[in-house]
């Protein structure tokens, strides 16, 4: 969906056609959920936070400044909603061993990929939520540093440094996890 197409949808919603909002939800739900889950590390809460963010965005659609990308504006709402859920959540600790991992059976190499995914999830769970989110947005390959800065409310330079630090930390965590894993074998 192109940016003008998104703007047309927004115009239709504002003109009193709320049902077309489903198209925007469908397009952005996976990234919105990914961002919320990276912050909350809990699928159920992430789902609720992402849904809340979509509803907030719907109610504030008239204030969306069309000079920015709709996705950047929306993901900033998702980021802030998830952060506020995190602050309010009584669920302060989730064992990283309980991290939900989706199994996708797709033939050859699945086990290796699933393992890598598990280790990556474990290592990422040890980063703080801002680093984890910045890193994820960077590797989702869709956002520039400036857009990540806008979503997370940080300076672009800070985002760059955070991503660098997060990669170093991730490398150290992975080294540690893989060493532990080798020792238990």
């Amino acid at each position, binding site marked *: 969906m192109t940016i003008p197409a998104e703007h047309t949808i927004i115009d239709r919603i504002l003109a009193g056609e*709320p*049902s077309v*909002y*489903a198209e925007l*939800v*469908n397009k952005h*739900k*996976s*990234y*919105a*959920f*990914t961002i919320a*889950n990276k912050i909350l590390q809990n699928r159920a809460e*992430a*789902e*609720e936070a*992402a*849904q*809340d963010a*979509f*509803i*907030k965005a*719907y*109610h504030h659609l*008239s204030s969306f400044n069309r000079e920015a990308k709709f996705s950047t504006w929306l993901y900033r709402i998702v980021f802030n*909603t998830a952060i*506020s*859920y995190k602050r*309010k959540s009584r669920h302060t600790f989730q064992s990283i061993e309980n991290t939900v991992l*989706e199994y996708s059976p797709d033939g050859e190499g699945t086990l290796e*990929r699933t393992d*890598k*995914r598990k280790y*990556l999830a474990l290592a990422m769970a040890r980063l703080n939520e801002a680093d984890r989110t910045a*890193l*994820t947005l960077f*590797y*989702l390959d869709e956002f520039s540093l400036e857009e990540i800065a806008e979503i997370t409310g940080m300076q672009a330079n800070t985002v760059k440094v955070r991503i*660098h630090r997060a*990669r*170093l930390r*991730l*490398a150290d965590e*992975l*080294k540690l996890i893989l060493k532990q894993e080798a020792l238990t074998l």
Partner: protein
Amino acid sequence: MKKISQAQEEMLFDYLDGTLHAADKQRLETELSQNRELKARLDELQNVELWLSKIPLEEMPSRNFTLHVMGKLDQYPSRSSTLISRNGIFLLVGILVAVGLATLLVSSGVFDGVQTTINLNQELPQKYIQKSLPPIALSGKLIVNIVILLNLGLAWLVLDRAVLKPLFQRRMHAGH
């Protein structure tokens, strides 16, 4: 073992991201061939890079995500504001009950006999004060009345934040 400097690490990232200038790239490659620690660090970072770029980071929400959002569009979010106003109402009721009880006790004369005076001359050593200070009389009734007044102020604040403001906001959104 040589310690890798922050500048070297920054250079490794720029090298991995392909944003390093040609001259710097050549200088780094020469350094990599001579510095085993730096090369090992690059290998680790390359490994992370490979994992992050190969493993899909995008996660899918539940199948009926869109359905849930569309079903809740009429409700103004969020659970947090509901919680805040519900807690606020409880707080308001609590304050009003406390104020009511205190007023009842004051009007029945429970605090009429509670009188005390604070004599500062006894509390402070003579060498620090030149003149003797007058004693301060305190009546229980006065103190409870001040507490009631403060509570009424607090109740008004809670009423504004927890009931009136959300109510007007909801009306505003309903009007759009």
